[in-house]
């Protein structure tokens, strides 16, 4: 009897591999979900709160617009941050020393200061001085610069994790430096950095909420406004959580899928 229970609730190891039967996984997920549901339903049931979803529902269009703006800004800065991160990572391997140190200083400054301050400085000082008034452009760029610093460290670590023997092998078969990066280094780096990269992208999406302070009309700002109009705080912010999850979950799922696809032992 006890062995049947343990079969349902525990992963069994066979040698080095783990054996997860389908029903075991299903039971595990349901139990975990039930546990969480129990805790939160208890917490919410204790709440003395007059729910008024109708008031918030009237502003559904606002939520949608904000969500789409967040999606657009995140997508733009995601692409830009990859480019910036790659350039910063490569700059640190550059033979031209000023470039190398520019890369280092950029990374330390960005990683060492709050995003909030960066947004304010870039929007009110830097962008203003260069005559860039578009807060969406500045917002997306600031986010890209912010995430780029982290991404460059992820890429740098990935490049360094490709062994010296691989580089030597590439040299031995007569590849140029560019070809070595293109055909030997990057394909291996890609697979290794996917998990941290996906985490960084999820952070970037959530960090975009800070752009509300320069009045970028994104998801969080809209939720704040709805809250101000309706005084329905929970009803304004809970959809916010769901909206961000709808963006971040696909990213981590995509990353898992790609990880499986590019799997090889090394």
């Amino acid at each position, binding site marked *: 009897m006890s062995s049947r229970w343990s079969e349902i609730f525990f992963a069994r190891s066979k040698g080095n591999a783990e054996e997860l039967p389908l029903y075991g996984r299903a039971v595990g997920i349901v139990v975990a979900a039930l546990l969480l549901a129990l805790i939160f339903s208890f917490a919410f049931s204790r709440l003395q709160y007059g729910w008024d979803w109708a008031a918030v529902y009237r502003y559904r269009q606002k939520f949608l617009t904000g969500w789409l703006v967040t999606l657009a800004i995140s997508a733009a800065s995601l692409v830009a941050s990859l480019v910036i991160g790659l350039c910063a990572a490569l700059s640190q391997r550059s033979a031209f020393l000023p470039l190398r140190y520019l890369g280092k200083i950029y990374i330390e400054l960005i990683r060492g200061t709050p995003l909030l301050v960066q947004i304010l400085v870039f929007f009110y000082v830097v962008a203003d001085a260069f005559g860039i008034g578009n807060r969406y452009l500045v917002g997306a760029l600031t986010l890209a610069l912010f995430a780029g610093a982290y991404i460059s460290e992820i890429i740098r670590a990935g490049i360094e994790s490709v062994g010296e023997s691989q580089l030597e*092998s*590439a040299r031995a*078969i007569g590849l140029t430096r560019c070809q070595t990066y293109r055909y030997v280094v990057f394909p291996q780096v890609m697979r290794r950095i996917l998990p941290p990269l996906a985490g960084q992208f999820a952070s970037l999406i959530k960090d975009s909420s800070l752009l509300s302070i320069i009045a970028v009309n994104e998801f969080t700002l809209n939720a704040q406004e709805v809250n101000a109009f309706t005084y329905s705080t929970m009803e304004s912010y809970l959809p916010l959580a769901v909206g961000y999850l709808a963006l971040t979950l696909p990213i981590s799922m995509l990353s898992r899928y790609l990880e499986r696809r*590019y799997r090889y032992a090394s």
Partner: protein
Amino acid sequence: MRLRLKGVVKRYHGLTALDGVSLQLSDARSVVLIGPSGGGKSTLLRVLAGLEMPDQGSVEIDGEPLEYSEQSLIRHRRGIGVVFQSFNLFPHLTALENVTLPLVQAHGYGKVPAKEYAMELFGRFQLEAHAGKRPFELSGGQQQRVAIVRALAVKPRLLLFDEPTSALDPEMTAEVLDIIAELRAQERELILVTHEMGFARRVADHCLFLGAGRILESGPAQQLFSEPQTAELRGFLGRVLKY
């Protein structure tokens, strides 16, 4: 092959790996380097492969002096096949792609001809069944055979083997040595660093004994093994042939 080395010195962080190696060979087809670990064998091989620049001295292969600009080094490396101790296949590529990568990227083959040609070589070395596998799915011996095919495929003028069997168990060692012996029988020009003394003796036209970064003895393999002149070589052979 014709090899001419003059006073080649290579230091790493103050350690002298090659301490003035000079050599003149005019008609050896297969050269074997033997000697104690850390004696400079691998470093010498890496200098010949264009993977390491000597600090001093000059190297001439078949009358062409080695130049150390990136451009001419790349040209030099493309004309030479190197097989490493730890196989060094690219883990993200299949066995076949490992062979076609240099063909396509460094030797101007089209993708399809490169694939056909590589498959033909795989057939010749009984590797067809493994063409689509990644290195981690292959045994050490199979990986090393793929690495040898990769080195051979580019029709190099010279094949360099850096302890190709040191990471293999005896059975796999045999399958790799068989291939090298076969290449030797085809009169391929090759330079081999090895600890397999019996094999060294069998395939070497010319044998070099390196110790402490110098060539201590050089001559036909038979002569080196049967009548070692220096105390170092006698000592070395005594130790490695003891068991």
